[in-house]
């Protein structure tokens, strides 16, 4: 019973072919049996999940049709959950039991979702391999010697292994799309401002965006329907009319203009991945899509610009962790400065410290213009490249990652090498554009992700195109044999 997608379960629950309690038990049992090999969950909330399932069954019995009514989901441990530890992969927040729910958690609860637990992640979402978590690395269900990607690695591995039908992620520089690609699932980063950041622990506030991770594009549409919407508690939340993100599923691809940014197909792209993309492009062309080469001439500057902007914002956001109001506090502080510096020195891991220091440095007197201001200008140049290209095409298509899932430890010693894992994903964050990754093939038994980047607010079209691709192919339906 793991072939069903989240969308299948929505239908079966509404048809009363299965109860939410039965479904919740089914997945809780899979987590218990199989997660020891993956470490994808940091907290399992079995008891409250069964209570939520019973409540959902009562609502279903009354004929209610909330978008996720009765469907088991997992929350990335970056989303605050009232009464449940919210550690964000960090020793700093290991003692933190949130006194409130994130808006995303609240909205999904209202939509009837049943939370099975919280998923593992890179510490404060800083990482591309899920190796920086205080709770240990997550392993890739397709090959447990390899990383699941990061930072939403727990959510990706859990969905990939079908321990849960859908999970939330957050994407600051690729943290939904890169692990989705590595674990053979579909993941979507919405337009900046679509999904509330309230209660989503901040990393880089001008880039962070929550989104869905599930087997199929249709699943992501159902989840996004529950997650997205204006929230006055997030000052950057966008006021937009409500939208059905599954409205474009029947999309006709004929005449659809898809751009291939030539910079995404250059040197550094794995040959196997290139071949998978060529085949995917052929499938879309056969369905009537018009394929054009386009250029994003400043895209090579996106990773360097990101590694100024994101750490700068992180150093400011993470200054709230001071050992005074919540979270970790060092033993026997001698004075206030000692309390701050040792609580932070002991509470944060190496990668988080590295980024706080990069951010502090680029914002410090004498360096601000040379780094931060320059990066903010480059950011606009990168966004302008996209604006130009979207005058001529409807969607962009390229690889999600330059290479296949790598072995644990392969990049741990070299931060810059690790940062380049996100070379194709970061530009969409800098521009604030929606983007997604969907499974498009396999190389050496490992999944390959295809990335779509859409124009602002064009999620429904993107989901529709991805859905049509998934009607022609079955890569999204494949489950690693050890977890089938």
């Amino acid at each position: 019973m793991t072939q069903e997608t989240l969308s299948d379960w929505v239908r079966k629950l509404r048809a009363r072919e299965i109860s939410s309690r039965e479904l919740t038990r089914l997945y809780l049992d899979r987590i218990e049996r199989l997660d020891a090999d993956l470490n994808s969950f940091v907290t399992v909330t079995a008891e409250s999940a069964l209570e939520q399932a019973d409540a959902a069954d009562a609502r279903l019995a009354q004929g209610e049709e909330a978008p996720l009514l009765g469907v088991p989901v997992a929350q990335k441990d970056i989303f605050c959950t009232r009464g449940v530890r919210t550690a964000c992969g960090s020793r700093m927040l290991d003692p933190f039991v949130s006194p409130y729910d994130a808006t995303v958690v609240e909205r999904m609860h209202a939509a009837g979702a049943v939370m099975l637990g919280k998923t593992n992640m890179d510490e404060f979402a800083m990482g591309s391999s899920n190796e920086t978590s205080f709770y240990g690395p997550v392993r890739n269900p397709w090959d447990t010697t390899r990383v699941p990607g990061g930072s939403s690695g727990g959510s990706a591995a859990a969905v990939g292994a079908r321990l849960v039908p859908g999970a939330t992620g957050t994407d600051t520089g690729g943290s939904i799309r890169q692990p989705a690609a590595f674990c053979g699932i579909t993941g979507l980063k919405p337009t900046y401002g679509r999904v509330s950041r309230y209660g989503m622990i901040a990393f880089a506030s001008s880039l962070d965006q929550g989104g869905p991770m599930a087997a199929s594009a249709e699943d992501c549409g159902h989840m996004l329907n529950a997650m997205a919407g204006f929230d006055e508690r997030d000052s950057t939340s966008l006021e937009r009319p409500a939208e059905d993100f599954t409205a474009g599923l029947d999309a006709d691809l004929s005449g659809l203009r898809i751009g291939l940014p030539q910079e995404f197909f250059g040197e550094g792209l794995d040959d196997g991945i290139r071949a998978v993309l060529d085949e995917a492009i052929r499938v879309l062309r056969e369905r009537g899509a018009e394929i054009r080469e386009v250029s994003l001439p400043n895209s090579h500057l996106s990773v360097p610009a990101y590694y100024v902007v994101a750490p700068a914002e992180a150093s400011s956001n993470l200054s709230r962790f001071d050992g005074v109001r919540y979270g970790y506090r060092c033993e026997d502080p001698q004075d206030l400065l000692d309390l701050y510096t040792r609580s932070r020195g002991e509470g944060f891991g190496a990668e988080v410290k590295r980024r706080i220091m990069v951010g502090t440095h680029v914002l410090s007197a004498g360096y601000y213009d040379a780094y931060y201001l320059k990066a903010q200008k480059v950011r606009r140049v990168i966004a302008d490249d996209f604006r130009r290209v979207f005058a001529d095409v409807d969607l962009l298509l390229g690889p999600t990652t330059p290479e296949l899932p790598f072995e644990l430890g392969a990049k741990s010693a070299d931060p810059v090498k690790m940062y380049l894992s996100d070379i194709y994903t970061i530009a969409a964050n800098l521009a604030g554009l929606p983007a997604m990754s969907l499974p498009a093939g396999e190389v050496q038994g490992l999944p390959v992700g295809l990335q779509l980047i859409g124009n602002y607010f064009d999620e429904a079209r993107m989901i529709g195109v991805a859905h049509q691709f998934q009607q022609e192919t079955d890569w999204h339906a494949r489950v690693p044999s050890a977890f089938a």
Partner: protein
Amino acid sequence: MSVDTEHVQRIAELSRLAMDADQAREFATGLSDIFDFVEQLDGADIEGVEPMAHPMDAAQRMRPDAVTEPDRREDYQAIAPAVEAGLYLVPRVIE
């Protein structure tokens, strides 16, 4: 640009991170690599470009100046490392 151990310790101090010389030495290589890497921005053609702070150039919303949050002091203090009589405790700062 390359940073030495002393410079790393200075940045750590500004970042309020306790760090001894051995730890600073371990960070020096990675930080130097990152600062070298981001120097690629020097080649960007950004003459006359306005810095971008928000993807949609949106401004902060205004809202009525009204109290909207309930008083949940006890809930919030229940998760603090040390409190007494409704106050957060820190080491003595005034002798």
